[in-house]
């Protein structure tokens, strides 16, 4: 690192630069940027601007809304519709929709509505956990690789290349078949193929952030590399990470459902959207509703997640 010019107020520059999320401050916000106490207010204003942009397009607004509705439905739904998803009504097997079973029953006489709600819980929570884990692991790998560079970078990225050498669902299938079907193994099977994409994405952002002036200033003022990496570089990657996570939610949900459909996801009798489709596919001739319901649920949720991801990207990056 080059030595700083003697007259540069390095401490102040570094401290100032650190909390700025991205450097895209509009001209109106700039004058207050130097005041330390302006920090929280500024980020508040920015948050509101992001929210406003999030709902600017009808399409993206609808995406956010549908996703919210689905999340509320699967969290609260089972408390409202309290029918046991595994209880078999042997007198009403493969029944048509009725007051007792609004979406009918499956071939074992289980209530389809209840299974869709509980299945959504399983699918969504697996997907959410998987996204959180893979974003954390992949993000850390990308952060370290991009910040440290050198041999560490090469080794980490070649490792990621090996994971990328197989299409995601295929790798998930292999892992799940090897470990055996269970909720925990499904998460592992889905996380593994998602890590490299996250690592690459974060690394590319880190590569550009680490060359910014405020990182240079921090280095020059003797801030420890570890602290620079976390406080300065990571802080500026969070927007990307958020977009990345919401886009991959839809993608991961499809893999979870695909695994379930092929019988390598959540084991029976627990409900899960993909597995429900696989159960029902045998009965598509007689009970199309049973097939339609969980499939439509996966479709709408994945679509909403993708729309939300796109909207977030547009909202956080006004240039796009």
């Amino acid at each position, binding site marked *: 690192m080059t030595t700083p010019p003697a007259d540069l107020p390095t401490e102040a520059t570094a401290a100032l630069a650190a909390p700025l999320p991205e450097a895209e401050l509009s001209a109106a916000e700039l004058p207050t940027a130097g005041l330390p106490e302006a920090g929280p207010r500024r980020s508040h204003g920015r948050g509101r601007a992001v929210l406003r942009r999030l709902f600017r397009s009808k399409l993206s607004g609808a995406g956010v809304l549908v996703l919210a509705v689905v999340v509320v439905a699967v969290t609260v739904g089972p408390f409202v519709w309290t029918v046991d998803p595994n209880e078999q009504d042997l007198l009403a097997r493969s029944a048509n929709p009725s007051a007792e079973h609004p979406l009918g029953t499956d071939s074992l006489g289980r209530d389809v509505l209840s299974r869709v709600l509980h299945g959504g819980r399983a699918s969504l929570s697996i997907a959410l956990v998987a996204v959180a884990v893979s974003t954390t692991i992949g993000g850390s790998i990308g952060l370290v690789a991009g910040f440290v560079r050198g041999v560490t970078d090469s080794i980490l990225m070649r490792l990621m290349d090996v994971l990328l050498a*197989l299409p995601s669902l295929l790798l998930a299938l292999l892992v799940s078949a090897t470990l055996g079907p269970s909720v925990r193994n499904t998460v592992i099977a889905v996380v593994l193929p998602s890590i490299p994409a996250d690592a690459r994405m974060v690394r590319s952002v880190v590569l550009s952030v680490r060359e910014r002036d405020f990182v240079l200033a921090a280095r020059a003022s003797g801030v420890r590399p570890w602290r620079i990496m976390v406080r300065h570089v990571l802080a500026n990657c969070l927007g990307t990470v958020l977009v990345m996570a919401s886009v991959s939610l839809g993608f991961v949900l499809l893999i979870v459902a695909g695994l379930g459909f092929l019988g390598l996801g959540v084991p029976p009798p627990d409900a899960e959207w993909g597995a429900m489709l696989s159960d029902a596919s045998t009965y598509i001739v007689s009970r199309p509703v049973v*097939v339609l319901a969980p499939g439509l649920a996966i479709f709408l949720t994945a*679509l909403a997640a993708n729309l939300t991801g796109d909207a977030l990207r547009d909202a956080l990056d006004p240039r796009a």
Partner: protein
Amino acid sequence: MRALVLRRLAVLPVLLLGTTLLVFVLGRLAPGDPAELFAGGHQADPEVIERVRTEWGLEDPLPVQYARYVGRVVRGDLGRSTTQQADVTDVLGRRLPASLELTGGALLIGVPVGVGLGVAAARHRGRALDDASRLVAMAGASAPIFWVALVLGYLFSVRLGWLPLSGRLPPFTTVDEVTGFYTVDALLQGDLDLFGSVLRHLALPVITLAIVPAAVLARFARASFLEVLGENYIRTAHAYGIPQRTVVWRLAARNAVLPLITLLSLLLPALIVGAVLVENVFSWPGVGSFLLEALQARDYAVVQSVTLIVAAIYALTGLAADVAYAALDPRTRRS
């Protein structure tokens, strides 16, 4: 240009070696004793199991086993399928044409549809058509393909009875297999009725799978055309009064389509995954359904081989796409 090809080629063996290691480790981690499975399961004679185990060298240290495995693969020996009691290479050779026919058909339909959607969106940017096209593309990318397959199968086969629901041929019908591509074989046989039947069997799986390339291309074609349509030479062409259609399809397309070539490497994994699921729903006797059967039966020689071949195809396509792009676009050549 040559440096690029050489650099990419140099990475290839490393990547494939990494993949062999991955599948080898997964194969060994898997529950179940391969020797016992090969000998016929639980009730097999312990003596036979023991013989298989020594014959296969399953008692050697793992690194030795791995080295031997790589050695065999390099020589083109993929091992024997325990379920089919045949060499994996033979079975794959028979299964591959079915998968290629399916994916080829999907590309044939999906690519033009996707590019058309993307161009329509780009030409009407910010208007209703743009939103509609984007929504369609995103819906295509968000729909679980096995569900689409089920719904289309229900509509066009069960309900309307227009198309057959599964397989490549009607029951009790055969084609003289020359190439393994039934469309070609039926034509070679000069049997037009059979050709029609083959096409009808192809229809549902192909249309379902075509959603994958259509959705991916629509999105990228839009971006690519938007960029090119904003360039000066296009504005000049408009100013000269050249018809819109000529401007878009002759002048802009040349530059806008090129970057789409690199999409191949992005499209391929999605297409492979899609093919596995579509083959499963429509009982299509291709590599994908073979892989699923093998996974279920723990036929690891097959699982390892399919995985390895997919990885190789995937890596080679990425390489080919990069090279083709560099070769076709003079602007990338100079740097």
